């Protein structure tokens, strides 16, 4: 009898909210990765790329290189998807020159400049629902838009990457994969500033184990064009030097 009641309740949910509303765990589709072509990002995701149909977040403090890394991903996305969209409310933040230097296909790129955060949310949801291959969101989205954005992306398989400062609880909840950049220092090259040296860390992952990290040097584009995949250069991390004071416990520096 309880089983019949349960089946009845499941049937009612399916009728009211559709077949996607309640799915048996064994029938859930496997995560579908989209390889970004950036080895560090693909490795940290645990599934070999950014998850399709999910919201991913790239966060970090100011100057840590999150926008630069996101633009490198965007450059790859413009070459692999018919439509890549950048949602950029503050008008001076996105400069097409950087992805262009990384070999982006500008014909596949559309810049959406919504006048208000609410319109930004509406645009993100509408484009994810329509099946835009890749959407890069450079603005914080209003909390009411995050739920619809998740479900819209899940239905269409769109890849949504949000660049955020970190600390937005609703966005952290909606994210399936959160990568955090932490600035270690600045990389000089021939007496000039080449770019930030940062640690990329996977702080949340619904699809694989989180916690992996990599060290990157994000060189600002100069001179001839450089493929996006080669642009954020992963560097081999120097193992911590273990100092053994005497007498006493060992400590890592």
């Amino acid at each position, binding site marked *: 009898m309880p089983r019949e009641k349960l089946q009845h309740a499941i049937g009612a949910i399916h009728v009211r909210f559709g077949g996607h509303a309640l799915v048996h765990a064994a029938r859930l589709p496997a995560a579908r990765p989209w390889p970004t072509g950036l080895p560090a990002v693909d490795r940290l995701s645990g599934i070999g790329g950014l998850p399709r149909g999910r919201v991913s977040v790239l966060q970090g403090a100011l100057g840590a290189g999150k926008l630069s890394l996101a633009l490198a991903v965007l450059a790859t996305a413009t070459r692999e998807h018919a439509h890549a969209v950048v949602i950029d409310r503050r008008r001076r933040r996105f400069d097409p020159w950087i992805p262009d230097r990384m070999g982006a296909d*500008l014909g596949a790129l559309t810049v959406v400049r*919504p006048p208000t955060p609410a319109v930004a949310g509406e645009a993100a949801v509408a484009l994810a629902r329509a099946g835009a291959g890749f959407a890069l969101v450079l603005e914080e989205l209003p909390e009411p838009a995050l739920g619809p954005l998740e479900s819209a992306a899940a239905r269409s398989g769109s890849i949504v990457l949000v660049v955020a400062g970190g600390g937005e609880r609703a966005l952290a909840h909606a994210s399936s994969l959160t990568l955090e950049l932490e600035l270690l220092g600045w990389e000089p090259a021939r007496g000039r500033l080449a770019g930030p040296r940062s640690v990329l860390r996977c702080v949340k992952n619904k699809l694989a184990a989180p916690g992996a990290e990599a060290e990157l040097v994000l060189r600002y584009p100069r001179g001839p064009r450089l493929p996006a995949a080669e642009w954020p250069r992963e560097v081999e991390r120097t193992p911590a030097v273990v100092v053994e004071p005497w007498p006493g416990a060992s400590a890592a520096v």
Partner: protein
Amino acid sequence: MAGRVCCGLIPHLELARRPELTGAPAVVGGGDGRVLAASAEAMTAGVRPGLTLRQAEALCPAAAIVDADPVATSRLAERVAAQLYDLAPEVEVRLDGRAWLDLTGLPLPGRAIAAARRCLRAAAGVEPRLGLAAGPFAAALAAARARPGRLLQVEDVPAFLSPLPVAELDLDAEQLERLDLLGLRTLGAVAALGPRQLESQLGKAGRIAALLARGEEPLPLTPWRPLLVPGARCQLEPPVDDREALLFVARGLCGDLAGELGDKGAGARKVRVRLGGEGAPEESRESVVRHPLSSAAELFGLVSSWLREWRPAAPVTEVTVEVPELEAAGRRQLRLWMGGDGSAEEVRAALERLQDRHGVEVALAVRRALGTSPLAGQRHLLVPA
């Protein structure tokens, strides 16, 4: 079965839509200060439509006097008509509480009558009186003489009409007085006189009256028809003020509409949403779209963006989604590519909708300009997509 038109009789819809007045003396006042409708209890006290409200109050001091709400009453009539339309292709519902179904050609007329009874009972909260005759006039008179919840079936219409008073004809007081002066006090007497003779006395109304009295039914039904423009409509009872509920309803309507558009092979060039409010004027929004919308997701994308910002003045009693302008959409087989980058057309449509709503500057394409310029703004141009 001789008769093929069924008439259901319920109280005036102004009273029917107020179930709290059932069983009590009540008077509905029209805008002109006269009685528009009165309950059976008030009629027993002598109140008649057309009297002034002051007269009605004097005749029946216990009666509750309420103001008419033509918009809400019309809405109820529409709802009843839509339900009856599911039973028979020719139906008519009048505000005075009379509803007709033309049963001609129906395979199971008895079942349609039973369903109509249930529908009218649900709308008015009381058992309807039902009449069945060869035409609407005789059926209405039969219904008026039936007991609540029963059907009075008239086989011999002239014999049924013959003893009835001429007051049953739709004539004004002067014409009725003239008939009285001529000694014509029953429908049988009028029928015996003949249409041409009565036309010479009363004009066209006399001719019609004579034909009605003979049971020849010169006045056909004025059939109710669903929306002429493709649209989907939902009546909400009780009224809804919850946005999520409205979105849920709108999603269903968009699905229905998309199915209809799919059957026609059409896409919507113009979309209109109308919200009927309880005791408030109807509100509507519409937009011309550059890219015809054909799928439920496309329609709901536009409609939901309106509903999310909409602040209706009153709880919503009716939601209508219409597409007044259509365009052939035979070449747009978007579903073939869903899930892949073939949905590019849907993405373009979504961008165009954003531009329609928020201006062309909201979606921009990137063009190379002065690539070597040190100024960021000169290196690329952003033009409307």
